[in-house]
């Protein structure tokens, strides 16, 4: 059985993000792009210290991607007279976030970044399906699934943490099922916030994630 161990939604004004990182680490994280900082703050909030060395996979999606950093790079490459600063180029490569946070999550074994192709629609169905498959295979002990977005006005993050082992106070378990339960929520970037509302309420024992993309099985949450 795969258990849901954390549901988290965060939002920061860009100026607040470095302080959130300092609060989480006890020190600043130098030369880290905003998406990396957002990933670090959320991952540490989802995993208590005693679980940070367990074999972990990180699957994260983003609508914005490193948009602001890409604009800076384009400006340097197309309008500047010299080559871009290496850090500005590195900041446009989202995969680098995982390398930087591995120092603080020593169990982080692999990471996958999935940029999204449409606004308002997410791939939680894919992320959670992969997480369930990999946990059932024994490929890792826990999986962090996230939606991370960074814009000029705010940095937003939504997280779900899943574990193969029983965890005290786990609010729900997950399965891949044939068909959907009566209660469903759409596959949108803020799905974890909708899931948290359902967990806090009392309507029905199961909730399914309704994706516009048809796969043969559906992700279903069951209250514990």
């Amino acid at each position, binding site marked *: 059985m795969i258990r849901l161990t954390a549901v988290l939604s965060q939002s920061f004004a860009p100026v607040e993000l470095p302080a959130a990182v300092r609060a989480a680490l006890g020190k600043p994280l130098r030369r880290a792009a905003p998406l990396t900082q957002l990933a670090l703050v959320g991952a540490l909030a989802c995993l208590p210290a005693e679980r940070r060395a367990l074999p972990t996979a990180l699957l994260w999606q983003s609508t914005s991607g490193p948009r602001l950093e890409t604009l800076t790079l384009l*400006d340097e490459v197309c309008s500047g007279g010299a*080559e871009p600063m290496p850090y500005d180029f590195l900041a446009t490569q989202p995969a680098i976030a995982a390398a930087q946070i591995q120092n603080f999550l020593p169990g982080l074994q692999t990471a996958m970044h999935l940029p*999204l192709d449409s606004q308002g629609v997410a791939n939680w169905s894919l992320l959670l399906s992969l997480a369930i498959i990999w946990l059932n295979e024994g490929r890792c002990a826990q999986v962090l699934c996230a939606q991370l977005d960074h814009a000029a006005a705010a940095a937003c993050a939504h997280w779900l943490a899943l574990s193969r082992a029983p965890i005290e106070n786990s609010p729900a378990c997950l399965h891949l099922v044939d068909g959907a339960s009566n209660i469903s929520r759409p596959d949108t970037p803020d799905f974890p916030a909708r899931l948290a509302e359902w967990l806090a309420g009392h309507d029905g024992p199961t909730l399914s994630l309704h994706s516009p993309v048809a796969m043969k099985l559906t992700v279903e949450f069951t209250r514990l």
Partner: protein
Amino acid sequence: MMRPVFIAKTALFCARGDSPTAVASALWNGECSAGQRKLGERAFPYFGLPLDEADWMVRSEKAVRQIAGQLGQLQPETPLFVASSSFQIGHFEQLGAPFDLPLAAASFSRQIGEWMGLSGACYSFSNACTSGFSALDAARSLIAAGLIDDAIVLGVELANDSTLAGFAAMELLSRTAGRPFDARRDGLVLGEAVATVYLSAKPATWRIAGLRTGLDGFSTTGPNPDGSRIADVTVDCLKEANLKSADIELIKLQAAGSPGTDLAEANALRSVFGQNMPLLLSLKPGLGHTLGASGLAELAALLACLEADKIPATAGFSKVDPEIALFPMVERSTEHIERALLNLVGFGGGLASLIVERHG
């Protein structure tokens, strides 16, 4: 219950040719010439696609439609998994300021789906040089678990100055040629490619026996020189495939001629394979390093070589680096290969190992 996953078809368009068999033939013949791409006052060797179109988007459409033509008729609802490190940034460079980037980072993937005639699920992956195997891993996991029956996995990396300038600024590019594992290696040579792998639950010649991705946070630009993390991923991949290291007959190296990464990969291989080193082959001197497309492009090229029992020599290698002390093939071979390992060691710490095995 997990099902086996097969590679039913491949397609490839790169500097060496417009199909996997054409590329394999060019590699067998030792073709490895590169063009040039200028960046300000500097010029770098570059493996560009043989396309004359000046408009970036028109050129991209031609490349993607060429690939679709190689695959033949596809079911429109076939899921599409797109891998790239740069998507359509070259298009915005060409349009110039003000840069009107789309609000969704991977909107180019939808455009690719339209050009391919695909209207089903579309997923995008951007993990720098390991993007292709990340996409392959996701697709094969869903097929193995029975959630989908087939998938098109497409890698695309097309010319742009942003990537070239970024690598140049970090002094990671060679000004002459890629020399894998060679004592004189001095950096990468970049290139373009579009490649696809059609995965299916239906039996075909090649089966994915193992695929594992990993992460090395030693540095954002290169792996730990001791190669320990790379070795861990390869060992995990062998375990998944239920194989011993001695079962691997050929390794398609990551080796691109990068001083640090080549050394780390060599140390990893020594730790896993010891004295029983399989045949070693790098395709990058012939294709260039095609970044997010490289995994799929090199997989398509390698399978075409293996199907013809014609393994090319590794161009660019002639002088042994005593620190590496490993020898990529410098002579062509007609050896029949049943199992091959493909390694990716990516910018940003991404790692991947794939084992393919002949079926039946």
